[in-house]
């Protein structure tokens, strides 16, 4: 049996209206999923995503608010272009597209995050563990291989 995929969830703290969903995300996430709560999806920078993949993530999910639903008015659009382009950039360099998923939440909906995460987790479990960009603690590359 293949191990559970390691998933990093970057979650905007305002995108889940119901406290039940928020509690589930904060306390009852399955073990193999790590939560990184940010004030707004606009706060997530490509450096976070790169660090996640470098530290061995099999999948990264970014959940934020739909346009015009942002607690900070337009800041959820701030990083939207960067994250979208960074995803295409990683895919251009060889990352499987399924490993980096965006989820834009309509604040009033309930139970969406649980469904999204279970679908995402199942999808990744079907694939082999990620070997691309998983490079931290690698061996030192000397131009001379002693």
């Amino acid at each position, binding site marked *: 049996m293949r191990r559970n995929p390691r998933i990093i969830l970057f979650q905007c703290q305002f995108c889940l209206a119901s406290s039940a969903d928020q509690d589930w995300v904060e306390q009852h996430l399955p073990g193999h999923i790590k939560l990184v709560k940010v004030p707004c999806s606009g706060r997530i920078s490509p450096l976070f995503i790169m660090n996640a993949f470098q530290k061995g993530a099999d999948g990264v999910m970014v959940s934020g608010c739909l346009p015009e639903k942002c607690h900070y008015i337009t800041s959820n659009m701030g990083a939207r272009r960067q994250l979208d382009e960074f995803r295409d950039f990683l895919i251009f360099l060889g990352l499987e597209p399924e490993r980096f998923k965006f989820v834009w939440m309509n604040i009033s909906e309930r139970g969406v995050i649980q469904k999204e995460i279970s679908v995402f987790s199942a999808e990744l479990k079907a694939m082999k563990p990620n070997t691309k960009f998983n490079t*931290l*603690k690698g061996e*030192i590359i*000397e*131009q*001379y*291989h*002693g």
Partner: protein
Amino acid sequence: MTSKVIKKDALNKTITGWMRSYDVIAPVSSKEGIHFRKISDAKEFTLQGNQKPNYPPKSIFLPQSEVLFEIKDGSYSMPEAPKRRQIILGMRSCDARAAWLLDTVFNQAEELDLYWARKREKALVVSFGCASMCSSGFCDTVGSGPFGKEGSDVMVTELDEAYYLEPLTEAGEKLTEKLDNAESGHSKAAKEIQKSSVVKEHTQADLSKINEKLYEAFDTPIWKEISESCLGCGVCTYLCPTCFCFDIVDEVDRSERVRNWDTCMFRIYSQEASGHNPRPSKAERTRQRIMHKFAYWVDNEKASGCTGCGRCVALCPVNLDIREMVQVITGLPIQ
């Protein structure tokens, strides 16, 4: 020490013999150019004319990134030294001299750098002289020429149909004792090649005054003029065989304390926490690089800190030529 000779076609056999008891590291050409690699087959060793790798072989003794300590719950443990002894085959005499110069920094008895020392004592340097000097090289002006002897255990001169080996240390003698001795014809031909390798037009400038002239020019604005087009990157220092500055960094994720190459050409190299920077602009940094090589090293060790390998001249992105810079400042012709 009795010189030896190896027939051209017998070289691979000799190297294979050496490989039984040594790890042989030699320049190997791949699609990205020439790099020193540990060779598993004698045929991989390829060296034509006066080629040498752009990446300096100082990285064999002072790797660009080296683990100083592995940290396990607070205790610092030094990684194991490689067991097998090594032969560095095909090092040019400018690089061998550079290793000899760096010994004055790292290999001093009272303050020994263990990491450098344990690699140096396990390595034998078999250096190849250059029959014709490389285009940007000036080793005959500042170093000890294309057939310099410092820093190498055995010096090889390529003759028409054989290689002429001159052991320079006991270790070199021991390595080559089983080879057949060279006749007088070989040594005469080798001497001839060695004499003709130096470029005639390179005037033997009297460099003994170079440090005084540099000290005199220390406060003049000339440094700003010559360094105006410098980009402030690390190419000249990282590729220089005698540059040894390093930075010590704690890599927390790897739980290792690591030493990386560093360069005085970066602004943050001398940036102090108080905000003060003793070398704020490119002028001071270029001055430090040149003064260190041609004044401070000369004062301390009576030998120039530059071996004239020409890598910084050939690969500087803006073609800042250290020969031209020193000539502009001191008036001494260095070709």
